[in-house]
């Protein structure tokens, strides 16, 4: 139609082109007007920490502790809990229990760098026997998480006792702010495994640790942190105090059956371990750690985080105040 040489266009074509051009001009002007801003981008803003851990301790009950000596973990843990009135004192019918193990390193259980799988299995079975509806096991390890749970035997122990292993993923963490804490402000914390949980049990071995002096139940909460948590080693006692304020467990079990005396917290050799044959069960993690320090030949005064956690109200460093029940597991 528009092929005739020398002839520009028909009126109809002109109008059409004019309408299209006007629409394009209007669209460009609108976009330019609508999206213009004089404000430069703000400083990076972090989401406020919305997640917080509930208090899992049993209310209105004085702190209690039991120490059992013996080499057989199944015997010592059962005896200790019996002495405290049985697992039913802590785990009730229908409870959803989360067990925080130490699965930090992808090493075999015999090296004692991680929670012993037999102890985990025993505690899971005790929880179910006390009526727990579900038991889950979690940790955010240092080495590759999947490898850690498998190589430490903890995944197998959890499976055989019927507990779910909550391996952390990117989406498992949520920013958390602990009131009064120095460092735990908007810091990513392992949140997903806590969904629906009503009771929290900490299961930690006693280990040498150069920076903090010892790694026991309080240091074990480090494994709930995400992000680049290694920066907190600059004030290790400060961060462990923050953790003591953040986590109020139902119960902690400190396994001093084999204590890692040297080369901690990784160990790596049987010669780093010593048979100290002690199982500590307590509702007060500070008291448990204060007692555990003696297995390493250290005193609470050598471990500033114990005194600071006590001062922050997370427990007592003087475990004698708890009148701990001291028992011996008979060898049969």
């Amino acid at each position, binding site marked *: 139609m528009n092929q005739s040489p020398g002839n520009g266009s028909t009126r109809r074509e002109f109008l059409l082109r004019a309408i299209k051009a006007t629409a394009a001009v209007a669209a460009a002007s609108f976009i330019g007007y609508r999206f213009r801003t004089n404000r430069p981008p703000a400083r990076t803003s972090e989401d406020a920490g919305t997640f917080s851990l509930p208090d899992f301790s049993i209310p209105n009950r004085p702190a209690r502790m039991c120490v059992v000596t013996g080499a057989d973990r199944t015997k010592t843990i059962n005896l200790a809990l019996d002495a405290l009135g049985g697992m039913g004192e802590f785990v009730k019918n229908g409870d959803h229990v989360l067990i925080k193990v130490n699965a930090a390193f992808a*090493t075999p259980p015999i090296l004692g760098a991680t929670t012993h799988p037999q102890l985990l299995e025993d505690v899971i079975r005790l929880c179910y026997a006390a009526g727990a509806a579900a038991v889950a096991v979690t940790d955010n390890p*240092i*080495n*590759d998480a999947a490898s850690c749970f498998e190589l430490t035997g903890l995944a197998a122990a959890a499976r055989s006792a019927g507990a779910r292993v909550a391996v952390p993923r990117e989406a498992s963490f949520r920013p958390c702010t602990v009131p009064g804490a120095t460092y735990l402000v908007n810091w990513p914390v392992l949140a997903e495994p806590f969904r629906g949980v009503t009771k929290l049990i900490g299961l930690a071995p006693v280990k040498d640790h150069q*920076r903090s002096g010892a790694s026991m139940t309080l240091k074990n909460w480090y494994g709930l942190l995400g992000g680049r948590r290694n920066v907190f080693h600059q004030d290790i006692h400060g961060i462990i105090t923050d953790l003591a304020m953040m986590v109020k467990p139902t119960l902690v079990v400190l396994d001093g059956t084999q204590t890692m005396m040297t080369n901690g*917290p*990784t160990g790596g050799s049987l010669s780093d371990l010593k048979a100290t044959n002690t199982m500590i069960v307590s509702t007060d993690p500070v008291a448990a750690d204060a007692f555990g320090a003696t297995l390493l030949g250290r005193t609470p005064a050598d471990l500033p985080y114990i005194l600071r956690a006590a001062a922050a109200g997370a427990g007592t460093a003087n475990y004698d105040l708890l009148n701990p029940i001291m028992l011996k597991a008979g060898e049969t």
Partner: protein
Amino acid sequence: MTSIVSIRRITQAAFLLLFLWLCAVMSLGTNWWQLRGWPVNIFLQLDPLAALSTLLSTGTLYRELFWAAGTVVLTILLGRFFCGWVCPFGTLHQFVGWLHRFGKPLAEKTRLNGYRPAQAIKYYILFFFLCAAAGTLLARLTSLARDGRIIPWIVVTACLLTAAILAATKLFPRAGRATAWLLAVTGAWTALAVFFPVERLIAGSVQTGLLDPIPLAHRSVHLALLPVADRFGGVLSAAPRQYTGALLIGAVFIAALGLNLWIPRFYCRFICPLGALFGLFGRFAFWRVGKTQSGCSMCSRCEANCEGACEPDTEIRISECVLCMNCLRSCHENVMSYRAAKSAGGEITSPDITRRGFMVSVASGFLAVPLARLGARLGLNWNPRLIRPPGALPEADFLNRCIKCGQCMRICPTNIIQPAGVEHGVEALWTPTLNFRIGTSGCQLNCVACGQICPTAAIRPLSLDERLGLNEYAEAGPIRSGMAFIEQGRCLPWAMGTPCIVCQENCPVSPKAIYTREVFVPLRDTLPVVAKADELTVDFGAAVLAPGAFANGDYFCAISGGSDPRPRRITENSASSLSIDSTDPWEREPAAGSQADVLIRLQRPYIDPRYCIGCGICEHECPVSGLKAIRVSAENESREPQHRILA
């Protein structure tokens, strides 16, 4: 009746799915579908190019690589069945090309699927790669002659020469001249070799993996496609997989597929060195596609759908035919068949290569590696950033085996085995290197997965005992991939007066390769003199301290100049005074007017080269997260004794 084309399509789909399945199951875990004896290397082991190139470079066929001989035997019987029926990469090309030409007119299809002389390029690529790999063999042969072991030398040389002459007579029209040339070059080389160590002029390196479709497909799926796909599901790995340089690897894959929109099976026809190898064998094919009678209506329907672009309607090019069998189905006159007889329409059995092109590709193949080695990457200028996985062979042997398939990078549970980029040297492109900034941890102590999966033993299969230096390997000690070095200018306790030692905590060996020395360092800001003091407190009489600032257990107080300079731990401080640990009081109360210093207790890390195995867990965990304050480099690696640090 099910047509042969339908059977071929079902077979292709099955092999593609099998390939993808074997890629998907390559993860360590306890689910039934995860790695537990799945034959994940089977496609690589059926690949004669991987087998032939490592045979040329090492003189051996490692483990199941000998299955490739089965592929060769079948190719000699059947033709290029692998390309048309098995190859997962070929199937993808065929599918994309089919989509593209779907519904196009017959003339356009015929144009797309016509033969092009450039299809000879893939043969030159093959010759180039094989000669690059054969450098090692040639060097070994040459040195045999000089070592006086004349008899084995004569036997091997005679065999190779006969094979070469036979090949030349089949490939080139004027065979006499080619034979003369070969004899002349061999004679001159031998004469030189008797008097001079000419083997030093040559070197070999397996680079077939760059373009060999099976390693290419493995690499692309493992390092580019699956990691992207798994970002949504998180099914195949707990943490999202990350690979440096995945963009290039993925781009090569996508580009290869995209070229089908220009010419169908572009990669197979013009580039694929494996296809070229099959093409050379295909001339022997016992059964072959061809015409049962010389005359037909020349409707060109057979050409319109020809995957190999092998001109079935005229003189069929046997070396290009991929046995897609489309011509059998397209032919309305039932002229096309697959049978144990020559095509009645005539056939061209040899690839369309020129003598000039052949000489250029052979010469450049033999020259490329020695040229690349002029950079002394295997000598004084070795690259300390190229950290190979534990069990990797010495670099020259490693390059003689690695086919860049990426299996080790996929299986690594911590995701630290990464494809090397060109910055690690051209020959090292896409070979495995350890990167401790990426992934979920360092190289885990109780893991030997990479060497167990490696199809060519470029990474030797280690037992845990050998890796860790236990039992029978106690004397040899653990395998070291490198060694950690601390940069004191970046390390917090060294440079910034700040406690840390995360590296020491995470060092997994016993005794730890990272140890610490305790020092007490005065703070930058000095304090006023003591106003008054008792055995547990020091009071400055004025508000000079931030309350509680020194109470975290890392700060100590010392009185300088006195008889009791030993630092005491500060347990509490107010604005004007500080208290020390009540179990360790001053021997004598500090006098008023004496100088009190606040010191920070630091544990400074050191490396003990006797114990460090270069696992890189320290580097991975170092809180100086940009350029790490502790970094592993390949110094002291077990595989290269000349890289050792200790005498």
